[in-house]
């Protein structure tokens, strides 16, 4: 159960190798979580330090929605109530390559959007029955206004962000909640080799913001927080200018 000061007991991380996801799970463990379940495709797993928390691994394939229900069943068997479900899986890919390989582009959207729709609906059903719990959805500023430079990824994130908003509204009053996380450019494995965008952040900063958001029952978390006013303006830029923005 989430306690009076916002610490939680149990965490399911979907995307169990996601750098941001692991940073969030690690932070929640340091703040008192006692069971962490890492759900990812089979393969070598990083062994991050989760303090004294009990760590479990489950097989989870975002691209295989038919298997998602079983993952939640297994997680509940391991942990009981799930206080926080972090949906952190996703692929970035290369825009130019996607434009050459439409099938690969569609498959990435299958993970980044369809996978989240399936996992999110499973999570929502479970949290609604529990009467408590938070689904943390890793969206991105890339989906707030889709840019020429990464519109396949951005379109999936735009869809995911809209889905998560609707899901949060659907859960309103149920005791369960959705928290949407909109990081800017996050320095890390996923973006290695890319030039950092302005106001770049780190997985640890995202984790700190998510933990604070859980304490405050936030619906949307921007990382860094100043991206919120920045994107309020970005959204209004005329398209002719937006199109010419670098990257």
């Amino acid at each position, binding site marked *: 159960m989430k306690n*009076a*000061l916002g*610490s939680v*007991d149990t965490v399911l991380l979907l995307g169990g190798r996601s750098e941001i996801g692991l940073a969030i799970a690690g932070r929640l463990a340091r703040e008192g979580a006692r069971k962490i379940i890492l759900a990812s495709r089979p393969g070598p797993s990083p062994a991050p330090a989760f303090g004294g928390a009990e760590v479990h691994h489950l097989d989870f394939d975002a691209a295989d929605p038919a298997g998602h229900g079983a993952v939640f069943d297994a997680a509940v068997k391991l942990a009981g109530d799930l206080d926080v479900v972090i949906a952190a899986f996703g692929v970035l890919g290369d825009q130019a390559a996607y434009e050459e390989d439409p099938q690969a582009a569609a498959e990435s959207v299958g993970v980044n959007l369809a996978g989240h729709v399936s996992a999110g609906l499973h999570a929502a059903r479970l949290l*609604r029955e529990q*009467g*408590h719990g938070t689904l943390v959805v890793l969206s991105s500023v890339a989906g707030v206004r889709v840019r020429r430079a990464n519109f396949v990824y951005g379109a999936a994130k735009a869809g995911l962000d809209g889905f998560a908003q609707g899901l949060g509204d659907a859960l309103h*009053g*149920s005791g369960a909640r959705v928290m949407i996380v909109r990081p800017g450019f996050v320095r890390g494995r996923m973006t290695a080799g890319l030039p950092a965008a302005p106001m770049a952040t780190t997985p640890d900063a995202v984790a700190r913001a998510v933990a604070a958001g859980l304490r405050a029952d936030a619906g949307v978390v921007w990382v860094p927080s100043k991206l919120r006013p920045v994107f309020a303006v970005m959204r209004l830029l005329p398209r002719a200018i937006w199109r010419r923005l670098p990257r």
Partner: protein
Amino acid sequence: MTFLTGWGRTAPTRATVARPRTVADLAAVLARAPGRGVAVRGLGRSYGDAAQNAGGLVLDCTHLRSWTLDEATGLVTAAGGVSLHDLMTGLLPRGWFVPVSPGTRHVTVGGAIAADVHGKNHHADSSFAAHVRSLTLVTADGRAVTLTPRDPLFWATAGGMGLTGVIAEATFACVPVESSWMRVDVERTGDLDETLAVMTATDDRYRYTVAWIDLLATGRHTGRSVLTRGDHARRADVPAGRDPLAFAPAARLKAPPWAPGGLLNPVTVRAFNEAWYRRAPQARRGLIQGVAPFFHPLDGVQGWNRMYGSRGFVQYQFVVPSGGEATLRRIVARLSSEGVVSFLTVLKRFGPGTPGPLSFPMPGWTLALDIPAGRPGLAALLRLCDRWVADAGGRVYLAKDSRLSAAALAEMYPRLDEWRALREQADPTGVFRSDLARRLDL
């Protein structure tokens, strides 16, 4: 479906609420208990999540409220939902008083037993369950069983936070009083050591004692206190013209329905504390006071818990055994130096506890304080205090708790497994559940 919280107004969760009016109703509700189980609730004065059950059923027992007094023996038999306020209103004019009253009289008899509550007379009279002669427990299978202090399940229920069943009725011994007034001595102490010394030396002269600590005083004033100690006044003590057995608490002030989150901040609380400390006389003897202002000063302000703003507050209450004074000093010094804004910080000396494996009191010192939940760094600060308390062989009070960890609980309550075994016998399928039970893995 309703959102419920405890008195601290933190961590709300949603549940269906049922309001049984008879023991038969209770059994019928339990027969169709949902998969997420059933929690028992009285007047909602536990500070944390003891009477919440996310996604499940909560039994609001406040409609079970009949009671009788046997004037020959002073034994009261009361339904679980009867409040101590109702009892006092009925008992005092007849010359009787409840054996133990916590800091609010708006608690039910069932809650008083389930939390094994204590009052200002703990050093003399122990906790509520010590005065209970028998109780009727409706267990998970819907049966009503009568338990006495000879039954292990009785003691798993006393302090068991409602997880063994529903306390439908209890019979307990009341105290004869000559008047409904209190004869009170008030004195100030300059620091914590003086407070402890005075309480140790002279508490046994009084039935009721408590110290209010100015937690914002630092340096050589750390732990300065106002000691309030008293007894039921004799009839001859009651001023002429006053009804010696009257009990009519003043019409209650109402706290505003909404208060800004920062209303209770270091500046306002420091000012209040200074005034409260200065207001108390150096020493005043034989003050005649009503029961309500002596026992339940905060009941005078209805909904005072809203003053902490929308994020609510945490009450931290721990006990350290006698000999653990160094830990008490360390915690008071730490909280004072951190500038923790606690409106009412109360120190009390405990006498012997009861045999309940989860019952809170033990001989020693208990300190209770309120802290706004939004205070930065509070979680880490209280975890540190938990560490010190556990190392000293002490424990945290579950009726106040909203943030302890399961691991810390297991350290503080070494008889936890004994309690779990008794509960498992009484409720093998785990019908009785609460958010507190989930959080603490009870």
